[in-house]
């Protein structure tokens, strides 16, 4: 099999498919936290109770035709497979660690992933390419209804869905978008934007979740508040803010062309040159350069590479993916060399 085929075979749906506003919004995600009444939450549950959660959810999901999901016990998965799922943002790093009765339900397309016995009994997640929060919510809501048809959720009239962590109480909903904002960064407007966003009850994080720095100008924006707001309000609010950010980013791109045309053109081509000819490269440097290249593509300055290159490669160049593609364990230097090869193969596709 050629490297090109291998690359295509390793792409997950949200990374490779098209979606609205895809030049700036890489993906949209909906997560619902749900628990079952009368069973202790995972942090307090005995193995038998955790097994009961798994059993009940399997029973429901195996007896329906609405959506096809495969069940996997985390302990049965090789460590590399688990890391691949973390790199695709399908499961949390914590869920990838060995533990009793931790489960994953995954759709063929990998757009739906349900984690069993993570922080909550059930975490329904839907991931879509581009800005598609409404569609993602629709899919997650249907799955939620399906499960609720047979399970008694822990729910109170006053406080809504009783999640394990009080920061999720109420709707149990975390809606988020992953956005690429290079021009806002280049024009020194990113800090202002982030400050304003956090005043609107939204949180901003780097690419790899809580506490992580921004890598490759990629940010994740999500709702912070879950109690007192309806799901529609939460999603509309995030959608509205995201649209504003898209406009701001587009304006900043115009500004770059007006004020710094030669400088940015030079920077984009240099970045592409480095990526095309480097012999070894770290993921940090790759992300920085790929961000420049994507901006160059989206601004019409680079025209021989397609815009999907960043979202595809930001997943493919991570350690587990490189080792999966290579078919063996590699140390850091070997990974840096393979990463450079992989990027070059993708840029020439």
């Amino acid at each position, binding site marked *: 099999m050629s490297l090109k085929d291998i690359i295509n075979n390793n792409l997950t749906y949200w990374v490779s498919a098209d979606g609205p506003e895809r030049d700036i919004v890489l993906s949209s995600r909906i997560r619902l936290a749900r*628990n079952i*009444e*009368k*069973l*202790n*939450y995972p*942090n*307090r549950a005995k193995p038998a109770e955790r097994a009961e959660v798994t059993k009940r959810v399997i029973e429901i999901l195996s007896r329906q035709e609405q959506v096809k999901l495969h069940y996997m016990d985390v302990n049965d998965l090789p460590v590399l497979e688990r890391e691949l799922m973390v790199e695709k943002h399908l499961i949390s790093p914590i869920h990838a660690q060995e533990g009793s009765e931790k489960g994953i339900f995954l759709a063929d397309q990998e757009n739906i992933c349900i984690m069993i016995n993570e*922080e909550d009994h059930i975490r329904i997640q839907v991931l879509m390419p581009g800005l598609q929060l409404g569609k993602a919510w629709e899919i997650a*809501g249907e799955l*939620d*209804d399906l499960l*609720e*048809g047979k399970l*008694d*959720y*822990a*729910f*109170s*009239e*006053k*406080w*809504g*869905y*009783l*999640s*394990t*962590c*009080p*920061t999720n*109480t*109420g*709707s149990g*909903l975390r809606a988020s978008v992953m956005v690429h904002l290079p021009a806002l960064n280049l024009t020194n407007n990113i*800090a202002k934007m982030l400050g304003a966003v956090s005043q609107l*009850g939204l949180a901003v994080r780097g690419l790899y979740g*809580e*506490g992580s*720095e921004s890598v490759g100008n990629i940010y994740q924006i999500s709702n912070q*508040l*879950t*109690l*007192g*707001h*309806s*799901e529609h309000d*939460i999603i509309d609010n995030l959608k509205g803010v995201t649209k504003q950010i898209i406009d701001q980013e587009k304006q900043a791109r115009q500004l770059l062309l007006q004020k710094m045309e030669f400088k940015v053109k030079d920077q984009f081509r240099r970045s592409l040159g480095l990526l095309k000819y480097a012999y070894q490269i770290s993921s940090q440097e790759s992300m920085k350069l790929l961000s420049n290249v994507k901006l160059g593509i989206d601004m019409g300055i680079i025209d021989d590479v397609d815009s999907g290159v960043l979202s595809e490669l930001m997943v493919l160049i991570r350690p587990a993916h490189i080792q999966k593609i290579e078919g063996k364990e590699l140390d850091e230097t070997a990974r840096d060399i393979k990463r450079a090869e992989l990027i070059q193969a993708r840029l020439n596709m």
Partner: protein
Amino acid sequence: MLCQRCNQRDATVHLTKIINEEKTELYLCEKCAQETGQIPFNNNPFSFQNLLSGILNPELSSIDSVQPELICDTCGMSYKEFTKKGLFGCADCYETFSSKLDTLLKRIHGSNYHNGKVPQRSGGNLRIKKEIEQLRKELQLAIEHEYFEKAAELRDQIHGLVEKLEGE
């Protein structure tokens, strides 16, 4: 303000050192402060769980000495442990700690009432109540716009639901 060391990240640590009466001030980002050993960041003190337990804890310290410790009968979680971990042990913890949760949830979310989706079965009457609320809003609008036929329809629907609620 940018970090004085890396000039890249925002300075979030303000350090004032007084040595032999000479005062020096440093503005660093968390990473540089950690790297230069200016501040002993062992376990990240700004971690989510630590900050959360900071929100949960002031509740405890003032009341703790007077009242007996709240312990959930179902899972054995104490309020103290809950504030440390930031996690409930089971659904009944909410009931057990309810006297303290109003303040706490309000502090986190700015609200202490759920205003969203209600499960079909375990939601009970709440679903009907919400539906009535929604229909009343629609009725108001219909009257304002003088859609009287629509208004009459809505009124009947509301009556039906109210009867259903009272019947149960």
